[in-house]
């Protein structure tokens, strides 16, 4: 790890100010992505701004039409949350599928979504539920948030503070984990908002996206078989030693079908 200055701000204003002042600062949330990156010497920030003591960034709040989860809320808290389990059980399930127990005890929602790893789980739910990303300066719709591999709508220094997940009538997440790393090779989050169906896909492409063709088919008939007729284009899908683009396309279909089956029996 290269050397850096460490800061532990105690307010959002302080955090963003530190970030703005430093030459090349970076926020530290749970550190489950950032610290391995630093250890490999793949990043050399001048300053690391630890968000763990910023008040108000962690926590889960159940509202009438959505669940608001603070950026610093750990995966394990979401997985174990009674509120989330009541409102959007699929989201609690998804959180419990991330990495392993130790990672879930540290990793945060904000870190995961801000990072936009192509094989991260949360982005599937953000897209699938049509969540709203709240930052220190604005609100961003899920559909506008993920831009590319590790690229999001967040501007330099913009701090993700919370995410509002609309409560679907029913929803389900199905993940095909990478056998080695356990990240998602493909993960599909399907949500039924009473007639309107959203399907978020992670793992398959450079970043999470809406599977609009599948949504359309499910919109006509909310049934796993509807997915069979959908042509899944995979020209822009990822291809690596664990899964070719073609195989990923198959997994998108299979995970989508399984998510629908699960959703229907939920």
């Amino acid at each position, binding site marked *: 790890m290269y050397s850096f200055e460490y800061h532990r701000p105690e307010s959002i204003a302080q955090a963003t100010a530190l970030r703005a002042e430093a030459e090349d600062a970076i926020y530290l949330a749970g550190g489950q992505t950032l610290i391995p990156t630093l250890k490999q010497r793949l990043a050399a920030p001048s300053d690391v701004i630890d968000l763990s003591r910023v008040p108000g960034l962690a926590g889960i709040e159940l509202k009438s039409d959505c669940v608001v989860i603070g950026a610093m809320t750990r995966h394990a808290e979401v997985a174990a949350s009674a509120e989330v389990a009541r409102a959007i059980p699929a989201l609690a399930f998804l959180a419990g599928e991330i990495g392993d127990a130790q990672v879930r005890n540290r990793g945060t929602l904000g870190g995961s979504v801000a990072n936009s790893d192509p094989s991260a789980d949360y982005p599937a739910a953000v897209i699938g539920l049509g969540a709203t990303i709240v930052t220190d300066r604005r609100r961003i719709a899920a559909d506008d948030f993920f831009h590319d591999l590790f690229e999001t709508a967040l501007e330099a220094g913009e701090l993700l503070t919370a995410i509002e997940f609309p409560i679907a009538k029913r929803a389900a997440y199905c993940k095909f984990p990478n056998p080695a790393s356990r990240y998602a090779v493909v993960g599909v989050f399907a949500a039924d908002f009473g007639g309107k169906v959203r399907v978020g896909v992670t793992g398959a492409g450079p970043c999470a996206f809406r599977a609009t063709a599948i949504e359309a088919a499910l919109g006509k008939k909310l049934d796993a078989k509807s997915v069979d007729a959908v042509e899944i284009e995979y020209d822009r899908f990822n291809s690596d030693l664990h*899964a070719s683009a073609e195989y990923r396309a198959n997994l998108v279909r299979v995970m989508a079908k399984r998510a629908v089956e699960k959703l229907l029996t939920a």
Partner: protein
Amino acid sequence: MSDTGIGKSVKRREDLRFITGRGRYTDDVNRPNQVYAVFLRSPYPRARIVSIDASGADEVAGVIGVFTGKDLSADKIGDLPCGWMVKSKDGSDMKIAPHPPLAVEVVNYVGEPYGIVVAESLAAARDGAEVVATEFEELTPTVSVANATAGAQLHTNVPDNVCYLWELGDADATNAAFAAAAHVTKLTFSNNRLIPNAMEPRAAVASFDAATEEFTLVTTSQNPHLERLILSAFVQLAPEHKLRVIAPDVGGGFGSKIFVYAEETAVAWAARRVGRPVKWTADRSESFLADAHGRDHLTTAELALDGDGLFQGLRVRTRANLGAYLSTFASSVPTYLYGTLLAGQYRTPAIHVEVEGVYTNTAPVDAYRGAGRPEATYVVERLVETAARELKVDPAALRRRNFIAPDQFPYQTPVALEYDTGNYEASLAAALEKSDYANFAARKAASEQRGKRRGIGFSCYIEACGLAPSQLAIQLGAGVGLYESGEVRVNPTGNVTVFTGSHSHGQGHETTFAQVVSDKLGIPFENVEVVHGDTGRVEFGLGTYGSRSIAVGGSALVKATDKIIAKGKRIAAHMMDTNADSVDFSDGEFAARDSNQKLTFGEVAFAAYVPSNYPSSEEPGLSEKAFYDPKNFTFPAGTHIAEVEIDPETGVVDVVNFVAVDDFGRVINPMIVEGQVHGGIAQGIGQALLEHGIYDDGGQLITGSYMDYCMPRADDLPSFDVDMTVTPCTHNPLGVKGCGEAGAIGAPAAIMNAVTDALGVVDLPMPATPERVWRAARG
């Protein structure tokens, strides 16, 4: 019988320190004033080192020095040797590529060390290494084993990159068998490259005492004496009596810590050079690049059968990847540890195998759990299973028809080995029963109902363990004898310190060896301490690999114990006024047959050290050494049956049942033996379904971390159903055979036979990854 004797599942005494965090592994060792080493490693699979400019590093605060291969050779540090000479079939010696510990002119694999940076802190060493400016001239690499002989030549003395073309068996007889065959089954397959991944990365802490000119090297070794021998006799680091090698607690080896590597060599050299203790611990990323890998074969194999389904001939052509250089035992693995096992459990009368060992620009390949024997088992058992399918006979029945029968032992195979004993039918029958083979069809049908495909696969393996009768081994090219040494030192108060040349890095010798010695001496288990892993304390040893510890090291201790008892009888006879022939020893007591006098073991031990009433013909003291040279290999064998269920939509293979029935001869501690089997099976399943060391065409290792190299995790595996049958080994005093590798040997073929059965395909390459299986399932 005591509850700590031979045959009892005694809880391990080493556990107490491990479960409380008090183990002492190499990286836990720190020396006063120590400095830290980081290696400069090649980013290229093949390149000429044009220049190394370390001036930048010298400016980094804390950097003490940057040393290269030239510094080592200026100090006359020799090449890393390969300890086994294999001859080609034309009688010529294998072609040995020069292997300097730190590359001097050319680097030949990604991760090959060519320099060492020594600094006050690890961070400073890393900073220093990062700013060393090395100019490389890239050369065309030869990466794939398939193209090895056609690719660019790595070493000037090795035309076509062929190290040897070795053969075993009778080619003419085998060809004749094929000419007369009623049926021939032929398969071409690879045996995937594996990366051992003991959980403790390799490490070394070396110090040099300028006053006595003695080196102390603490390192992660399975065989510290061999390490010392090689570093002295071949590498010329220091004379043997000036070099102490300590292998403290070692966190798993699986073969990868047998070998003498560049890193500990350079670290020891650097300790003298900088005059301070030097410490190095591998990052896992370094382990991936620079630990010796395993397997990596391409094979075409054919089995000839007559009209009755009897095996008549086996013809095997293998190309084995040796990597860029010959690691310590690399040459023997795909030859003597492979070709000799191709008879399997069968009476196949004619066998011929040809192995081409080739160099490629990849990390050296050497022994990894099973070493040659998993590859041989894979060949035989995939062929046999496939033949059964082709002939539409039950695979168990076909095997039975060809088994060497219990009354045929000792059995001379056509590939050099003489099996002493076995009962293959017994383990097969037990395994069939346990796996509920009779009802498999019903389970398969139930799976199909759920849209799944179920398959079952057998593997009736045999292995040769207990390496090895020295004369035979040396005849076959080994550079050392393969006996083992042991010492039983009875202390004046009657407790016992046992010194063994075997080394435990998970096998539990501190427990099992104490069981053996306490059982033989009839003294409490607690009174026996086992010392291993230190050339300064243990006289000599050849270490632990090839499932040899109990069969060879244990036998040496039995021999030493017998000498103790014999001397004890002479002392006791004197004390009881009789002659030694009239003294019986049992349960820790010497009893005079002609009177009712008795002496305890402790009393005799005390007399040996306080010799007042003592025979004048005896030296004082009660301590005996023994070297045990086995008369033959041991031949553990057994049947593994795997049952898998495949999700055809995703290609995921679920191992729903795994049965292993093994014959390890007599068992000292069943609990430990079962644990060994479990671990081996996990690695075997890992090979079949998950693990694969992959270099891309450009020679980069693309499975260089746990992100991509798929290690078996708890939820990838089922619980295993393990049992044993027993035919005692006929030629060692304990009747033991060894159990450390069986799981890794038997499992891959069982799993792949099950997967191919489920899919209804002839073959599928290992590992059977979800995508491969999905494609196969689609047809």
